């Protein structure tokens, strides 16, 4: 693009640097190629550094116990001990943890997608006195640390008899979250207002407009919300730690952090095998939806 506009003579005749034009062009192109090559190299090296811990997790998960504790740690295990996965996942009831985590995160994802798309519709598409003030208020609540409300919420849920269940974590998700409202609102604002007006003239209610027009048009943004919510709740630790006591209700992160070993100590090869399995669903979901996700955020522009 840059070269094209520079090389058209009509646009360059008025600029002062006519004489220097060819050399400038060459140096600009050279500089661009140079930057691109260096950037690619740094990208590759950086990726190696940044993903090295993941490689290390995989490598350790396949080592023998001896190799996992050897002072100069071997890069790769001598033989792949795939049985580590079986051992690690059967000494603790990881099947149950998996089921609990899937149940919990899917329930929250559904709740957050529905509620936030609903609430954001109000803020983005409907005019009312005080709307902007209220929206800034929603944004301001982002600053309230969860810890301030944690204890009264705990007491409230304890009185309701909701302790040792996922209700304290799922029910509030039906009432929206400030960050996701903000994200979806930004996206909704980019949908032309004419759609709503046309539908209104046709006699549609706002509820129909939300459900039949806005939702289908904002699938990428809803996808982003769903993925963000899924990854966040899949890894969530503090909430389940506070509300869940019963081992049969543990999520993966809880189960992993309280990994019991039959002979004590810290069997790192098992820890890494179990860790890798717990994060794998996140990585798979992310790769399946990555185009969606990266594009959605980069395009809808979550800006301050």
């Amino acid at each position, binding site marked *: 693009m*840059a070269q094209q506009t520079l090389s058209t003579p009509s646009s360059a005749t008025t600029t002062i*640097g006519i004489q220097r034009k060819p050399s400038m062009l060459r140096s*600009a192109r050279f*500089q661009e190629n140079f930057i*691109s090559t260096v*950037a690619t190299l740094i990208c590759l090296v*950086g*990726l190696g550094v940044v*993903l090295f*811990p*993941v490689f*290390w997790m995989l490598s*350790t998960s396949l080592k023998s116990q001896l190799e*996992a504790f050897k002072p100069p*740690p071997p890069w790769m295990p001598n033989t792949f001990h795939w049985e580590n996965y079986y051992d690690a996942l059967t000494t603790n009831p990881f099947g149950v943890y998996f089921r609990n985590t899937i149940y919990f995160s899917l329930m929250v994802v559904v709740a957050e997608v529905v509620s936030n798309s*609903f*609430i954001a519709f*109000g*803020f983005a598409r*409907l*005019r*009312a006195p005080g709307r902007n003030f*209220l*929206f800034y208020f929603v944004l301001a609540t*982002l*600053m*309230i*640390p969860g*810890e*301030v*409300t*944690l*204890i*009264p*919420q705990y007491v409230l849920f304890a009185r309701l008899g909701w302790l040792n269940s996922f209700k304290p974590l799922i029910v*509030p998700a039906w*009432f*929206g979250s400030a960050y996701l409202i903000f994200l979806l609102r930004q996206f909704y604002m980019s949908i032309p207002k004419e759609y709503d007006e046309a539908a209104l003239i046709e006699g549609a209610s*706002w509820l129909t407009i*939300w459900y039949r027009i806005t939702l289908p048009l904002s699938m990428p943004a809803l996808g982003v919300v769903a993925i963000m919510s899924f990854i966040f709740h899949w*890894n969530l*630790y*503090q909430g389940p*730690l*506070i509300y869940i006591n019963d081992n049969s209700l543990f999520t993966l*992160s809880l189960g*992993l952090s309280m990994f019991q070993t039959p002979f004590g100590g810290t069997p790192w090869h098992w*820890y890494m095998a179990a860790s890798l399995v*717990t*994060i794998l669903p*996140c990585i798979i979901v*992310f790769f399946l939806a*990555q185009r969606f996700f*990266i594009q959605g*955020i*980069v395009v*809808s*522009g979550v*800006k*301050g």
Partner: protein
Amino acid sequence: MLGILPREKLARREAMWFWFFIAPWVLGFLLFRGLPIIASMVLSFTNFSNSSVRPTEFIGLDNYFKLFDDKIFYKSLQVSFLYTLFSVPLGLVFSLGLAMLLNQKVPFLGFFRTAYYVPTLIGGSVAAAFLFQLMLNPTFGVVNYFIARMVGPNGLIPLGIQGPGWFFDPKWVMPSFVLLSLWGFGGPMLIYLAGLQGVPTQLYEAARIDGANAWQRFRNVTLPMISPVILFNFITGIIGSFQIFTPAYVISNGAGGPAYASMFYVLYLYLNAFRRYRFGYASAQAWLLFIVILVLTVLALRATREAVYYETPGDEKAA
């Protein structure tokens, strides 16, 4: 007259629909935020323990006075401050650098953008805490092995430097946690990337014609144009780093050791509330945290007011 009446009626109807749509948020705010905030303030003036054994008494500002005498509380405040002081600026620079890198004309850009985000999927999890504990182990950890090979007594450059004790050495606990936090650079990186894509290319072309070099273009075009995004990442970074809990709890086994070096603010709050059932005391801690975050946010906004450039006057972008 005839034309005005229906329009007014329409506007009123639209406003009613607005309240209909945001009703869940209003209800949720009152139930799970507003009332608990007030309740938390009230609790902070009591010795509430959520048990029938000890009756709850109103004890005024006692919790706050006790906090100011509590050495561990000061330590936790210091730990979280130091953590914020290092992890937030380092994270800002690191993620901006990567975003700039991924904003270049690089082959397989889509792949790179995706792959660089992977650590962030794991970053705050229990698994990541375990992983860093293993990699930073002083005796059989890969990081110290690498340090020994590079600058150890028999290393590539024999400086005789030995790897530190990381999570085992009170002096090195903080750098260890900062390293772990840097691994979650993907979130701010994506937001930077969105900001960088929004900078008009004409500005770069104009700067280039004026003879600006790469650094000058970065300093005079990129930085001012994405300054609102930097501010956004800065403030969310401060708020997030003060609330760090999972790695601290998992790595120190819920003890905040060694020598309270990993007693982060929220970890101490959690221990007071859910281990010792000192709910009143913990509520006072929570309120002080709220005030600290509020003050830091306002300070950050004030300090950057001159430095942040907005395309349109006022807050048009957000509205």
